[in-house]
């Protein structure tokens, strides 16, 4: 009786051990499988993002920051920048919030974002400078002169950097103020002189 009980106990114990072992194995297997599946899904998603990035950038549209992040990991910074910069020229208001962009991106993307910021600045001359310029210009000059400065600003920023371009822009505004004021005074004097002559006649 005792022997039977011992056999039963041992059998139960061995079954318990096997069951436990199998359970552990099974859970590990399931975990690995899930992980693999997740990896597969993640790779697929990245693959999709990469192809979407190509199609968007190829069409001259600006891809989302998530797409850029994935593409950056796959293709490297140089390629991502060279593909995005032409698109950035078309859509300037993107990537305004750099901190938000950084949160969503890998750390290495910082350099890329700085280029984005520079590209954004390249396309947009300082607003304050532009407003001052519009104040001193006459109505017909408000189209051509800011346009010329914006065009040159982009070229200078691409060559010497955004900061240099900003300083250049303000120098241009200050330098343009005096000739424009002189012109306005001359016209004002002419108009008042004409009014005086007419009064005499």
């Amino acid at each position, binding site marked *: 009786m005792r022997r039977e009980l011992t056999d039963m106990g041992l059998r139960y114990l061995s079954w318990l051990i096997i069951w436990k072992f199998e359970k552990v194995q099974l859970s590990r297997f399931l975990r690995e499988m899930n992980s693999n599946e997740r990896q597969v899904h993640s790779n697929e998603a990245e693959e999709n993002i990469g192809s979407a990035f190509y199609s968007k950038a190829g069409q001259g549209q600006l891809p989302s920051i998530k797409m850029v992040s994935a593409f950056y990991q796959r293709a490297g910074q140089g390629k991502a920048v060279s593909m995005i910069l032409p698109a950035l*020229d*078309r859509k300037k208001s993107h990537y305004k919030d750099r901190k938000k962009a950084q949160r969503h991106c890998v750390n290495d993307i910082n350099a890329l974002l700085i280029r984005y910021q520079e590209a954004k600045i390249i*396309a947009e001359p300082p607003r304050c400078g532009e407003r001052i310029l519009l104040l*001193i210009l006459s109505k017909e*000059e408000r*189209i*051509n*002169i*800011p*346009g*010329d*400065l*914006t*065009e*040159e600003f*982009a070229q200078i920023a691409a060559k010497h950097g955004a900061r240099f371009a900003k300083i*250049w822009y303000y*120098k*241009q505004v*200050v*330098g*343009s*103020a*005096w*000739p*424009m004021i*002189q*012109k306005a005074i001359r016209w004002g004097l002419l108009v008042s002189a004409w009014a005086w002559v007419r009064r005499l006649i």
Partner: protein
Amino acid sequence: MSEQKDYLGHFEEIVLLAVLRLAENAYGAKIRQTVAEATERDVSIGAVYATLDRLERKGYLKSWQGEATPERGGRAKRYFKVVGAGVQALNDTNGARNRLTHGLDFGFDAT
């Protein structure tokens, strides 16, 4: 009595020559760049436009509005072209300068 000749100011002459040199591509930004490169100093766009307006009023230039491009923030270009009177004024100014400098020794090698 010969007809009265119009002589250009120094900066007017430079701007007019820049417009002549740029030919079909003569608009504000390009003219400013050409003048800045030739004079080796940063010229303000306002000074260039003030001179261009003056030259146009004198009848040496004509201008017209061009196309608007995205890199200019959607603003149109204003193209300039030297007309016959402008070329004549350049010739007159150059002739006067040549007559005055002919035979003069500046005391240094100009080349």
